[in-house]
């Protein structure tokens, strides 16, 4: 029994890193400084991810606050089987989906569930190279905001987790409770949809 327990703790340490594991354990035990350190470590990640989903700074900050409130309430349930960041992403996703539902956003999204992508472009143009600097023009930022906000949240979240946050297909699937093929399918449709939205900017 002792060996099993030791192996279990060893795996948990390897999964989430010793320092972070200790921090989480202290926070679970009610250590407010450890909890604050944990929040400080992840607040920017949570805000940035929430912003990429809801495209609004106020809503992103609100989502960040609600996410960490949920963390406070349910940290004792975190078992270390997944990365702490994956667990956090899951909470942010739940808050974003709840917010979208409460705002009755459904009608504003394009339906791409049933839409089969029919590729009928005889000539695919070459798009100009992107600017080297990382500052995007306000026109381009507006275009990106408009494009991604048309995507239903289920697709948007997959796109952001996989392509922007850099999670693997399996990590994304685990975070969202989807199968890997479902993640791949949503990602493919999301990418194609967004590419089509950007076409007029690059081709006109």
């Amino acid at each position: 029994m002792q060996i099993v327990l030791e192996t279990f703790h060893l795996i948990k340490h390897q999964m989430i890193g010793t320092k972070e594991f200790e921090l989480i354990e202290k926070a679970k035990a009610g250590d407010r400084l450890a909890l604050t350190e944990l929040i400080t470590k992840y607040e920017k990640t949570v805000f940035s991810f929430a912003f990429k989903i809801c495209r609004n700074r106020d809503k992103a900050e609100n989502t960040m606050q609600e996410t960490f409130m949920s963390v406070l309430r349910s940290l004792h349930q975190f078992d270390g089987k997944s990365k702490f960041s994956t667990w956090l992403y899951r909470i942010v996703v739940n808050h974003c989906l709840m917010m979208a539902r409460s705002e009755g956003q459904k009608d504003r999204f394009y339906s791409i569930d049933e839409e089969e992508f029919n590729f009928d472009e005889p000539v695919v143009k070459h798009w100009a190279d992107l600017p080297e600097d990382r500052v995007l023009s306000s026109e381009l930022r507006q275009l990106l905001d408009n494009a991604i906000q048309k995507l239903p949240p289920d697709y948007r979240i997959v796109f952001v987790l996989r392509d922007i946050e850099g999670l693997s297909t399996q990590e994304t699937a685990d975070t969202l409770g989807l199968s890997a093929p479902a993640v791949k399918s949503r990602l493919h449709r999301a990418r194609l949809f967004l590419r089509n939205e950007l076409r007029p900017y690059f081709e006109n």
Partner: protein
Amino acid sequence: MNLDHTLKTNLTCKEVIAQVCEYLGELPDSPLCVAIQEHLKNCDNCNNFYDQLEKTVKLFKQYNTDFPEGAHKRLLNFLGLSGKSDNE
């Protein structure tokens, strides 16, 4: 679209467009991705399409926003943890 990747290595443009995201994914050495890569080398249209998808993803990656001023303090206040941070 189901393809037997062990048998089929010459893909049509339609097949490449339908599955190009596999190549823009995490298994570049898989038989399907190798077949897509071969096709892209010889097809300007599909190569441009792949390039457009890459640029689309890159643009969204580039789009970031700063962490709001005072957000850390507001967060700790919201959580009832004010005055306990070494960073404040």
